[in-house]
């Protein structure tokens, strides 16, 4: 009975902490304390967190190297813009539609390709990302290569923040469940886990579809903030950007993905002024991290209340 009330207390404290952080930033935004430049950075940060955490589910936890994440983002972005801007339906339907479309795309791509292993899967997903881009370039309904300009700005801090929290919550809880343990067992040894009776393809597809849905969510939020989307935005370099965040944070660590996404967003902003040296500095930082922390910033470790408790020497 005591155990139960304690966990309930923990839950309450977490909710309060999250709401507090949200209200704090919301207050700063409405009071005009945050200038436009930081507002945009905040947006990019949340979108990058969603992308990195969802890609980490596929690449880090499931151990399947996917390079097509930008493709799912594109599906979500375009589907939602069609819903909100072309059909004039509310934003929430756009969000659900975008996620659903990306999830379906993930399923369609995942079922045949997830039977492939290692490099072959990487190639197949990379190809998928490129196919999406080229298909979008040739659809006149969405203006082909010029993209859709003048998208209504509907993404607000509330949407961004709670979308990022939702992504983290869903994926952390998934990984703490029996599904999560099955998913990790596939990463550790696919043959062994199959021998244990785990439906490896099924779990891989599950992880892939969930990852794709959240990439779609990121795409929806992106499209409704940045005014223009064009197929070129979602090229394979975008997928690599996400991969960099995941690898930098540590494959298989949600905390790592979040930290790396925030770090990379701020790094991009900080380097705007050093135009000529930007890519050099950016690359150098990545190389240095990879030399001294080849497992990424967090490795496969997570930061949780337990970690803090251990460090402070308090009760477990």
């Amino acid at each position, binding site marked *: 009975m005591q155990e139960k009330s304690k966990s309930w207390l923990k839950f309450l404290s977490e909710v309060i902490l999250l709401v507090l952080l949200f209200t704090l930033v919301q207050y700063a935004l409405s009071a005009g304390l945050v200038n436009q430049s930081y507002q945009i950075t905040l947006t990019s940060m949340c979108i990058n967190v969603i992308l990195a955490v969802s890609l980490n589910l596929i690449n880090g936890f499931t151990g399947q190297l996917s390079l097509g994440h930008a493709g799912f983002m594109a599906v979500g972005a375009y589907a939602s813009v069609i819903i909100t801007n072309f059909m004039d339906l509310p934003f929430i339907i756009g969000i659900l539609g975008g996620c659903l479309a990306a999830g379906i795309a993930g399923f369609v791509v995942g079922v045949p390709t997830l039977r492939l292993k290692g490099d072959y899967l990487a190639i197949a997903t990379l190809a998928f990302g490129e196919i999406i881009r080229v298909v979008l370039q040739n659809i006149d309904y969405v203006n082909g290569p010029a993209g859709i300009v003048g998208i209504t700005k509907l993404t607000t801090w509330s949407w961004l923040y709670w979308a990022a929290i939702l992504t983290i919550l869903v994926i952390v809880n998934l990984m703490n469940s029996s599904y999560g343990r099955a998913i990790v067992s596939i990463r550790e040894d696919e043959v062994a886990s199959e021998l244990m009776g785990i439906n490896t393809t099924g779990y891989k597809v599950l992880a892939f579809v969930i990852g794709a849905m959240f990439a779609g969510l990121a795409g929806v939020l992106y499209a409704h903030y940045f005014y*223009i989307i064009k197929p070129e935005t979602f090229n394979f370099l975008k997928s690599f950007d996400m991969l960099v965040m995941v690898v930098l944070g540590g494959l298989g660590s949600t905390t790592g993905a979040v930290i790396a996404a925030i770090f990379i967003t701020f790094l991009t902003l900080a380097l705007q002024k050093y135009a000529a040296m930007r890519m050099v500095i950016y690359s150098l930082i990545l190389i240095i991290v990879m030399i001294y922390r080849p497992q990424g910033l967090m490795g496969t470790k997570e930061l949780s209340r337990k970690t803090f408790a251990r460090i402070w020497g308090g009760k477990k």
Partner: protein
Amino acid sequence: MITRRNKKLALLLAMMLILSIFAGCGGGTEEEQQPVGEKATIPVGINVELSGAVASYGSNARDGAVLAIEEINAAGGVLGQQLEGLQRDCKSTADEAMSVSAALVGENIVAQLGPLTSGDVAGSTPIMMDNKIPLIAPAATAANVTVDEKTGETRAYIFRVCFIDPFQGTLMAQFAADNLKAKTAAIYADTSSDYGKGLAAYFKQTFIEKGGTIIAEEGFVSGDRDFNATLTKIKGSNPDFIYVPGYYQEVAPLIKQARELNITAPIGGGDGWDSPDMLSVAGAEALNNTFFTNHYSSQDTDPQVVAFVEAFKAKYDKEPDAFAALGYDCAQLLVQAIKDANSTDPQKITDALANIKDFVGVTGKMTIDEQHNPIKAGVVIEFKDGAQTVNTRIQP
């Protein structure tokens, strides 16, 4: 115990470090938000693509704009104040262009020059409109850059110094029909960009109006490297003229492969051809008998152009291309507007920009129309043994 304490310390230090990053960010902007005093410089944002897909265009335009600003400052500045060019890289992406513009607005710019591509300008547009600060685009040629297609209204704070895409297709069709006496033409366009599609459409329209026939229409996409199959097909139809609107990355190997297949017909294109890479990839011989439309040529004998080319060469030790010239004109046009407005207030500069008449830049004399497009002439440039030479100048 000691290790535990060390861990505590490390955690604390890490926390401090993270906090200091945020504190540093906040402090920086406050310092920059000083009001512009009498003696202060006039900050001008230069938001261009210095890395990414079109870094070559962006850095050339930046060089041109920086040269103009230096010349103006050396001549005493404008309204007794010196201009200060704030260079930023938008990584050739629309979202980064928006982020850069917002950062520049925070530094109290009076106007922004760039970005180069239409998509990146679109990314920057909402920020400029929100803050009522003018944006002068050097080379964004899509029609919807300055005009909102939904409402048909001109975007009040967005201007450009280049002519729009359709004009180039029309120009080349005029040139092919009148000067080259072509009766039949094949179009082999970059169908992955609006640029290629737009030029092709207007070329087709004007060429047919001039009494010509389009006997083949083919397409390639950005990133293609092998064009032999389609070129063989085009060779079979034996056109008098081949129109290849696209960017130099694809056009250079395309021309090389066309000449290797013994296609001798003249080949034409748009300003996307303008890059030193054309010569290094395709070679001088393959480029003979090829033409492209452009905003300007460094071979022009106009005294103002000659002076610009000399100054540019002296500073950067390279030939200025059209993007450099357009970047230069952007900065010069802004100075003209500041002088006309007799103020550095962004709103007054915007009003002055909308009323520019007969401004003489290195890319020609221009008048800004009510859609914020310049009315100006274009040139047809021919490659002769690897050198760009002006073939003719065509008035719209």
